[in-house]
């Protein structure tokens, strides 16, 4: 390139200077045109990246709301599950057991025949003693209370029995036993229903947790895409700066070359 330039200047300095200027102008306009194309391309990339960032930010916000909702629903479902489980335990366990105990006592009285009043007194005393000893030994207070109530009820029945006939007492005991058995069955069934509702809420809690995991994964994916868009934007800006710098250097170099040639001519 250097040799070619020296040959041209040796043969026809004016013509060579003219053609060199034309060539420089061509290079300059070519470089500028190239710069324009490159800058346009980078501007398109930047605009795309900016749009991606805006959309990603909006989506991220929506996902965070959905994630918070899912977590809130899971917490509510857990609370409901605990509440219905508690009710199920009360009906299916405590009430059913007390009713079962009453039914058992009633059945004993009903089948006791003529010895029923004596049997009632014995049972009442035994229940009362059991409640006292149980309380001292740290038995469940609910059970102690149930024993005391049963003792009082049985004692009352024994008083009634002293004035009524044994047959009437047996009839009453049978009715009490029937009611107690019905209550026990109903409490068991109600407890089962409440436990079923509790299980349904627990399943709903797991579903909500699954949805929360889904939203979290989407959140991570959108966050990564957002990072990509930022990197793309940063890269486009850097590339644009470099391209501008490069073309500027080319133009500067052409200018320097022209100056050098002009000085030389």
């Amino acid at each position, binding site marked *: 390139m250097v040799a070619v330039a020296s040959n041209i200047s040796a043969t026809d300095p004016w013509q060579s200077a003219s053609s060199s200027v034309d060539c420089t102008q061509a290079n300059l306009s070519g470089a500028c045109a190239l710069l324009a194309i490159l800058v346009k391309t980078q501007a398109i990339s930047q605009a795309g990246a900016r749009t991606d960032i805006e959309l990603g930010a909006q989506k991220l916000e929506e996902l965070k709301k959905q994630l918070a909702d899912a977590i809130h629903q899971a917490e509510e479902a857990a609370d409901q599950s605990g509440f219905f489980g508690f009710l199920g335990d009360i009906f299916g366990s405590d009430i059913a057991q007390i009713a079962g105990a009453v039914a058992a006592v009633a059945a004993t009285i009903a089948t006791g025949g003529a010895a029923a009043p004596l049997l009632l007194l014995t049972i009442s005393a035994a229940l009362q003693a059991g409640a006292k000893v149980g309380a001292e030994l740290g038995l469940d207070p609910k059970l102690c209370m149930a024993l005391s109530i049963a003792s009082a009820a049985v004692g009352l029945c024994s008083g009634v029995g002293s004035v009524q006939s044994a047959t009437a007492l047996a009839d009453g005991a049978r009715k009490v036993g029937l009611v107690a058995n019905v209550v*026990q*069955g109903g409490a068991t069934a109600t407890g089962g229903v409440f436990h079923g509702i509790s*299980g349904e809420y627990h399943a709903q809690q*797991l579903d909500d947790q*699954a949805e929360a995991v889904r939203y979290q994964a989407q959140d*991570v994916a959108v966050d990564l895409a957002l990072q990509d868009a930022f990197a793309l934007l940063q890269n486009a800006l850097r590339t644009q700066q470099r391209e501008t710098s490069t073309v500027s250097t080319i133009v500067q170099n052409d200018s320097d070359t022209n100056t050098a040639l002009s000085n030389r001519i």
Partner: protein
Amino acid sequence: MTQAITGSNSTSFAGELATLLIQIESNQSESSRLTRDAARESYLDNAQKQVDALHVAADATRVGAVAAAVCTVASGGFSIAAASAQFDADVGKATNCNALQVASDELNAKLFDAAAKTSGAVATPLKSFVGDSTAEDFQAEAKRFETRGEQAKWQAGDASSSAEKADRLGDKVLDLLQGIQSDANNSTNAIIGRI
């Protein structure tokens, strides 16, 4: 005949070297990006599997709870039926009613009582077998997918860092190449001025 090493040759050599380096860094960056994309796909895939496993666990819990509830309600119903039949039998015995009817009531009471005890005893194991154990299996499965997803996320993060590093190195090489070109241009201009 010897050939002098000219400025354009050295520029060309530097350019070729820079091009090679940029190509290497570009390949490295592309490879890291592919690794990152694969890791992200793996993360999303594992997250989806975790979600599916949790839904299956929820369904199993629901089925177990419903089955147990049905058994318990049936047990309560049978208990009531047994008590009613037993009451009829007792009243019949006390009032000296038809012996056949009393026997029938007693048989019914025993049958209902047996059914109540059976369905009540079946409820808890059924809930454990159909619901809880299956749900726990799938929850463990979900946990495994969660762990895999976390690993994939770490891999994606490492690959992203590697790609950024390669990009930065490529930028440095480009800056270096620009400097070399600028020096070469200055030299050429100086030579032109000297000629």
